[in-house]
């Protein structure tokens, strides 16, 4: 589905080159829920942006659905959810969801159908005609997810979508996201800096470290796909969380120079 091999990415800045990604390799299979976790500066967002063709790697090879990322972008193979909901203030919730459909040239009836479908999916029924400022932060982010789902790409890339929300709302949205993933069978790549969030959501956890940005551990989760919030008290959950924490710690102390 998504294959990243030996990717290096160096940004030229005024303070000299910054090694944002070094020798990153990763396979994501169809239907996976993959989390990228690490401290800021570890390149987790950059990696997601490379997959989305928003950044170009300096070296290495990336394929998305057997295409180079830029072709995959043009073929609209993925939906991208940003850190900020980024809804258009002059459009209602349904107007915002229709925006990518308008850009992609869907017919009016198809726009209606798809909008209704994704509004059901994120449970925003009754809020179609509200403007973004009339919604809470959590609801705005749900609308933003609905918008990314509207054109039915089979990959969903999410860059800390719940980072700005409080823990209670975040827990609920995590549950809903898992549910949505279960029902749609999408492949999801999810950037986060929260260990419980990463362990709870993922089938595969990619632990990353900064300076240079690199992968220190890839954990295949033994947790069942069908899980609820209570699983966070189970032994397995705690063991995985421990391994993630170890991976993050190792990245900090490891001497890379």
């Amino acid at each position, binding site marked *: 589905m998504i294959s990243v091999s030996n990717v290096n990415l160096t940004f030229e800045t005024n303070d000299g080159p910054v090694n944002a990604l070094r020798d990153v390799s990763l396979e994501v299979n169809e239907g996976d829920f993959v989390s990228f976790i690490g401290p800021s500066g570890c390149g987790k967002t950059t990696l997601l942006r490379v997959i*989305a063709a*928003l950044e170009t790697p300096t070296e290495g090879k990336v394929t998305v659905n057997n295409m180079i990322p830029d072709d995959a*972008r*043009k073929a*609209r193979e*993925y*939906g*991208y959810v*940003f*850190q*900020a909901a*980024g809804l*258009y*203030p*002059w459009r209602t919730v349904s107007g915002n969801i229709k*925006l*990518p459909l*308008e*850009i*992609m040239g869907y017919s009016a009836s198809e726009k209606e159908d798809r909008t209704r479908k994704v509004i059901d999916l994120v449970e925003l029924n009754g809020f179609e005609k509200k*403007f973004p*400022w009339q919604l809470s932060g959590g609801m705005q982010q749900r609308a933003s997810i609905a918008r990314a789902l509207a*054109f039915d790409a089979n990959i969903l890339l999410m860059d800390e979508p719940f980072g700005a929300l409080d823990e209670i709302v975040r827990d609920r949205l995590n549950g809903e996201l898992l549910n949505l993933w279960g029902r749609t069978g999408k492949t999801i790549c999810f950037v986060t800096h929260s260990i419980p969030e990463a362990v709870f959501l993922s089938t595969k956890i990619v632990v990353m470290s900064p300076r240079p940005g690199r992968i220190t551990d890839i954990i295949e989760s033994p947790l069942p796909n069908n899980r609820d919030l209570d699983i966070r008290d189970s032994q397995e959950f705690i063991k995985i969380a421990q391994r993630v924490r170890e991976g993050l710690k190792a990245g900090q102390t490891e001497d890379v120079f």
Partner: protein
Amino acid sequence: MKKLNFADKFFPVSTIVLLIGVFWYLLAVPMNSEKVSRQFKDLPASEHILKCWSLKKPKLPTPHQIFSEIVNTTFYKKISSKRSLVYHGWITLQATLAGFFLGTLLGILLALGIVHNKAMNLSVMPWVIASQTIPILAIAPMIIVVMNSVGVTGLLPKAIISMYLSFFPVVVGMVKGLRSPDQIQLDQMKTWSASSNQILWHLRFPSSLPFLFASLKVGVAASLVGAIVGELPSGAIAGLGARMLAGTYYGQTIMIWSALFSAAFLAAFLVFTIDFLQKIILKKMAIVR
């Protein structure tokens, strides 16, 4: 902060108007005193002051003289009469609106070019700024003369001068406005592989509207100045500018001031109209609440 309503604004504004009025009447006394002394010998002080406020050709006419002239020439003259302020105002307003329309169009087109074309981005702005460093009074007669020599007279040369003044705020505001969407919004458009036309129409243009309206308010006032300046060097016989010019020829200070005030009222009216449109449109688009 609480939104101010009419009653909240009325008292401070009227206080300032009152203060200016008082200062004006005080100033009119020393300004006109010499002329009064020449015309009327040995008046008692109180009558001397009253005369200062009611001369036929004072150095500084008083507000009531100016306003009675405005009322007189606005409401008590036929609007087709050469002595009607409505007639002159209408002539100037036509050139203003034509110039404002052309200037806004030119400004938006230049801004679109600057935002979408790399060469224009690097090259156009210095010229736009340079154009505004040339005094309009120097360039206005040239435009009038050149256009006159190719047989174009009347409204268009004045409108061109208005355009020359009013396109500038529109370019500056629109470039800023079209670039106001943040990186996330632009990246998002990229993930949908939107064309630059779609980005312009769905994102850049709506985002730029608040900037556009701010520019239009400056632009429309500049247009009016342009139209009046365009009437000065051409020996025009109609328009508020021509009215001011005629006033200076014949020493009719009251006429000059009444044309000046009419121009100010016209400008205020135009700016308020745009402000009104801005409130309605932006509210309708839910950009402001």
